[in-house]
């Protein structure tokens, strides 16, 4: 028996969520009195995963230059079987969310996604999942022998727990892939909303796209990703890829700074998984203040430049 963790990577580098799922897998393995095995597919250096408690790392190297749902599902299934894994832990990156349901079917396993805590009990096997756009939690029992757990981003967290691990190569056979990649369009050198610890987001209160310079500068100072509200992307001031909220991208960052966003319920549904929320708005009645941790009632065009200046000084000190 073992706990298998799929440590996802992109272009040979582990994603932040890879460390979170290894930490989570380590915890579940302790609860079950077994070992954690991490699986990487064309991933980074195995020793990075030893740091988070992976005693064994199974490394698959092959010609898959980018994620493929059927291909990755086949690899995870083969390794899970080879390692006699009863529990498979997968992250909530786009790849993880895509492959996990296929793995569940392949292993005839029950699957719980959006899991935010270590199992509250392992017999019965119960995990806490977020649901209803973070307005509720669902304590779910997984009824099958084999289990797939999808760990929500930035919830359990990454915890260092160094072990002296070992790595081994695994030769996985690939099925017919079905879907083939034609091209990938990725902004380089930009922090993505999915990976960011800090997200700086702005709304219609900024009056026009020409005023986004200060938002980008604030994001630069904080090493943050930039985001926007739905009206802003609908108006074409910012690309759709920056739209966060219910129908846009979900945000689960440590810090979310909302500038000139009133806080429509659909927006809040998409961002309230963030740990600390700061609102800057000149309308004290903006509903976002009720959902925020910290707020400044004031004109963004005065507050944000001051914040940039003071943060620069703070970062240097």
């Amino acid at each position, binding site marked *: 028996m073992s706990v298998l963790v799929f440590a996802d990577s*992109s272009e040979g580098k582990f994603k932040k969520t890879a460390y979170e799922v290894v930490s989570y897998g380590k915890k579940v393995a302790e609860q079950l009195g077994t070992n954690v095995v991490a699986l990487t597919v064309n991933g980074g250096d195995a020793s990075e995963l030893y740091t988070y408690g992976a005693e064994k790392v199974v490394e698959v190297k092959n010609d898959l230059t980018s994620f493929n*749902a*059927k291909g990755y599902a086949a690899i995870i299934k083969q390794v899970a079987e080879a390692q006699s894994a009863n529990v498979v832990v997968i992250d909530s*990156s*786009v790849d993880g*969310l*895509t*492959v*996990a*349901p*296929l793995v*569940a*079917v*392949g292993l005839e396993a*029950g*699957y719980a*996604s959006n899991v935010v805590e270590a199992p509250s009990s392992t017999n019965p096997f119960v995990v806490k999942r977020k*649901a*209803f*756009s973070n*307005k*509720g939690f*669902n*304590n*779910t*029992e*997984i*009824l*099958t022998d084999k289990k797939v757990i999808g760990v929500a981003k930035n919830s359990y967290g990454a915890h260092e727990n160094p072990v002296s691990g070992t790595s081994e190569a695994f030769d996985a056979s690939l099925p017919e892939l*079905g*879907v*083939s990649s*034609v*091209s*990938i*369009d*990725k*902004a380089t050198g*930009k922090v*993505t909303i*999915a990976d960011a610890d*800090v997200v700086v987001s702005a709304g219609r209160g900024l009056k026009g796209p020409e005023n986004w310079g200060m938002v980008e500068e604030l994001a630069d100072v904080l090493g943050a990703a930039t985001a926007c509200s739905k009206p802003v992307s609908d108006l074409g001031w910012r690309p759709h*890829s920056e*739209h966060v909220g*219910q*129908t846009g991208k979900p945000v689960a960052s*440590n*810090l979310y700074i909302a500038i000139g966003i009133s806080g429509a*319920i659909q927006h809040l549904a998409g961002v309230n998984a963030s*740990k600390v929320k700061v609102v800057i708005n000149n309308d004290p009645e903006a509903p976002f203040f009720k*959902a925020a*941790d*910290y*707020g*400044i*009632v004031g004109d963004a065009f005065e507050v944000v430049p*001051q*914040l940039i200046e*003071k*943060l620069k000084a703070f970062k240097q000190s």
Partner: protein
Amino acid sequence: MKILVCISHVPDTTSKINFTDNDTKFDTNGVQFVINPYDEFSLTRAMWFKEKQGASVTVVNVGGAETEPTLRKALAIGADDAIRVNAVPTDGMLVAKELAEVVKNGGYDLVLAGKESADYNGQMVPGMLASLLDFNFVNGCVGLEVEGTSATLEREIDGGEEKVSSTLPLVVAGQKGIVEEKDLRIPNMRGIMMARKKPLNVVEPTSSSAATSTQSFEKPAPKGDVKLVDNVDDLINLLHNEAKAI
């Protein structure tokens, strides 16, 4: 082309979320149910294939009779017919297995769904369905074209987009971008009248069993009041020393 669009019947976004029966059931009291917004994007794309390429469009839901108004709304938007699998959708695997039966029996080439439902946010059913059927699967789809039996799609990936190609049969989990919000259709009176006459077939479930079960629900801990500050020095101080966020 035969298209099946999977429709979830979910609480409207603005609904208050409460639980009853000792926190074991979602409280539907006063809750208005709608077509899952993610599914609506996919349904709207299906309408385009119907109108431009002569595709037939069937909508399906796994649920009790209370979900029929939601299926009727999908018919009013323009779907040709509807199927309701008469089962309580307790778990993603159960729903996926029931849908797989519908796909096999109906011989659909293209199955469209939303990438998640707005209630449980599980993001499970489309991938499971594809895997059960051994169909190709594209998740988080923000662009879909079909010519004959080949499809070209754009899907969202972390930090960008990927263009992929696939042959049919195919399961696609769509989201905003597969059509834009302005393309969504509000049913008109004619559509609503016609929807009443369109077939809505109720089929009994197979004996699929669930792989998970909900033991209880919880509401998030109440949030403390916002701390308002009047200068950025205080804000930086609080974010650093209290929230430990910078």
